[in-house]
């Protein structure tokens, strides 16, 4: 089991993860963000690998990516940074990014090096599940990397089942059919969708993301799913507060009193 799988095997409720873009706001920000998040009791982290054309992302993540690229962030540099902090932190790490930079780095080499840097899982939203199964599954398995796939309210039942079968960590539940950071609140539609997923009794836990930014959205995700990921809202805090401890504290304040130190 990789560290993320271990975490998910013992903690099944109220998981909280945050997303940030590597190289944002500064080229070397990752270490202090990871440390602050760990100290604040965040369960696991999603580290974004910046891409010039992030199709699934709204303006906040787009801007963080542009800035990170200007700061010189690359997969190479990110893996080097992660290698440097390996052993100094225990929080499970996921890498999230688009397929093209990974392809250029070399997919085989990427999975191997990510695993070597202590990464547990990889999310590549534009990698088709069918291509993963055909070309990459043995590679991921060999290096103990879990693939994570997205489902949306419009994903068909059969597809959800095949995604569940292909997964061995969790399923990323996109809150609504929209780009990141777009959702202002969750309503009846989200509730029904979350419950529909839950009633499918999938083998993997369900973690919700896209639009988690306050107590209402977090509670709703927590009530119906196993956990939640907060992205754009965290990046906004990072932009506002150069002190990463402060940024994460501000985020937790917004998310509600019971979200911090919840282990």
């Amino acid at each position, binding site marked *: 089991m990789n560290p993320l799988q271990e975490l998910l095997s013992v903690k099944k409720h109220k998981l909280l993860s945050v997303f940030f873009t590597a190289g944002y706001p500064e080229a070397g920000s990752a270490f202090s963000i990871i440390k602050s998040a760990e100290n604040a009791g965040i369960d696991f982290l999603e580290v974004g690998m910046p891409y010039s*054309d992030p199709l699934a992302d709204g303006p906040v993540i787009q801007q963080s990516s542009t800035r990170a690229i200007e700061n010189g962030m690359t997969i190479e540099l990110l893996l080097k940074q992660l290698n440097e902090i390996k052993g100094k932190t225990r929080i499970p790490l996921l890498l999230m990014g688009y397929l*093209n930079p990974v*392809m250029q*780095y070399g997919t085989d080499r990427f999975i191997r090096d990510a695993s070597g840097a202590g990464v547990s899982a990889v999310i590549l939203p*534009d990698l088709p599940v069918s291509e993963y199964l055909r070309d990459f599954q043995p590679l991921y398995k060999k290096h103990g990397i879990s693939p994570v*796939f*997205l489902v*949306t309210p*419009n994903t068909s039942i059969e597809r959800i089942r095949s995604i569940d079968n292909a997964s061995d960590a969790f399923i990323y539940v996109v809150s609504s059919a929209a780009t990141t950071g*777009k959702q202002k609140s969750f309503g009846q539609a989200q509730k029904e969708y979350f419950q529909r997923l839950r009633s499918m009794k999938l083998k993997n836990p369900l973690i919700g993301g896209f639009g988690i930014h306050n107590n209402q959205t977090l509670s709703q995700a927590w009530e119906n799913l196993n956990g939640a990921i907060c992205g754009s809202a965290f990046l906004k805090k990072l932009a506002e507060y150069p002190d990463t401890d402060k940024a994460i504290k501000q985020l937790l304040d917004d998310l509600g009193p019971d979200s911090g130190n919840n282990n």
Partner: protein
Amino acid sequence: MKNNIKLKVCGIRSPANMMEVASAGPSYMGFIFFEHSPRDVSRTIAQLPLEQLPEHIKRVAVMVNKPLDKAREIVKKFKFDLVQLHGNESPEYCKSIRKEAGVIKAFAVSDHLPDELEEYFDCCDYYLFDTKSDMAGGSGKSFDHSILARYTLEKKYFLGGGIGPDFKTDDESLYPGLCALDINSRFETSPGEKDVSLIKNFMQNLELNKTSSINLSGCFPDKEGFYGKFGGAYIPEMLYPNIDELRKNYIEVLESEQFKYDFKNLLKDYVGRPTALYYAGNLSEKTGARVYVKREDLCHTGAHKLNNVVGQALFAKQLKKKKIIAETGAGQHGVATATVCALLGIPCTVFMGSKDILRQQPNVLRMKMLGAELVPVESGSKTLKDATNEAIRHWINHPEETYYLIGSTIGPHPYPDLVARLQSVISEEIKKQLLEKEGREDPDYVFACAGGGSNAAGAFFHFIGNGKTRLIGVEAGGEGADSGKTAATIYKGTPGIIHGCKTLLLQTSDGQVTEAHSVSAGLDYPGIGPMHAYLHNSKLAEYIPVNDKEALDAAMSFSRAEGIIPALESAHAIAALDKFTFSPDDLVVLCLSGRGDKDLQTYEKHYS
């Protein structure tokens, strides 16, 4: 035949012959996995480029009592659509393999219909009636067809067994339930080698396969949208249902009689097709060859873009979409979309980079006049690439009611194929017009500019792989193809993913897409349609860069020589003529993709 009977060509064995047969456009092609047949491909199947077969030709694996796991392996490995079973396979066997592929259960017929048909009713998709023989068909002998008149079951059947070029039926009621004819040995020059002209004649005489008229290979992707290793659909899950809906429906809609009728009429009366093929005397003299200009500039709204828009808008209506969105670079695609949306009464939103808004003012004003909502895009390069990103993001956020009408042969499958098919009318007309004017269908050269590659795809389409025509795609070299300020994607690009497809693109070594540079907004795109990446790799077409200054100069001299002001994009294709040495009787077709009104500002700045 009135009932739209399809054709299956069986017993294909060699790669070259396979592609040739594909060009005749049968609905099914059969490959025999049976060691005792002279047409056996068990050991040679891997050498056949099955992935190059167009999607509308279904691949059939013909087998005789093959162990189930072997059969399954063959189907999976080579992605067969159907299996055809000639042995004593049980209904359970059929049921089991039917989870992987469609099933045609074959029965040897002598003087009566087999008794066990009903037993197989629920476990196969079609029956096939063949003459009793020991070699899985191909015996060349036929049985007495009169027993078929008594066929009453609901299941459709294929008819095989000795069907030859002389087969005919004056009365289709003698064949109730017949859906396809299966031909093999009687259309061959030697076992496995089909005589394609015999097949073509046969199809024509019997009016077979009325629905698949497009018939060339090399220009269609495989089922998953791949042209060789390029293409595909690399999209986030949020887009999956949208794209899946298009993928599942586009061929059926495009091949439907209603669509063909509406499309043809709008092309004729609204777009103004066929566009002229004009013998450019002065240009010919200067070039030293016989140069014909395909006048896409005469299309309504001034460019080839309208062909694609009319087709996709009809498709969007068929899918009952309520809104249309589009990206635009030069504004030609935006204007074309705004135009057709006005005509069909569909609300329209166009995304355009703010840099392009400044350099293509006339088109901005036209879109506004036509009632489109224009969204300026401020992200990234502020040109076509980012306009496309924003259009896709908008689609993610408004998935159900919105149709994304893409403007070129780019994006995730099925867009490149969809757009290429709609633009293929360009080369279809060129063929007819050349035959009239020059007594031959295939020119020696076709020149077309390539941004995303739609006018080039359309102008090349019916000439691809014909072995006679050199196809030249002209890319924007910008300030020089090696200057770092270029849009010459094929020349400078490397394989990667842009806007959901695998193709060649301009990017940094760590995979960030870089900005393209061209004086012409319509070519200012860091990617290229996957079909062109494939044609380039397989040497079926050639691509060369032409830089800004060469294009601007060509625009001026062409205007003065022929009295036609070309679009700056098209001027790149004109300038490319200078880079070739022709012999005087070479027949050259130049695709003039658009007219230059929108570029007058740029021209004036350059010439003054």
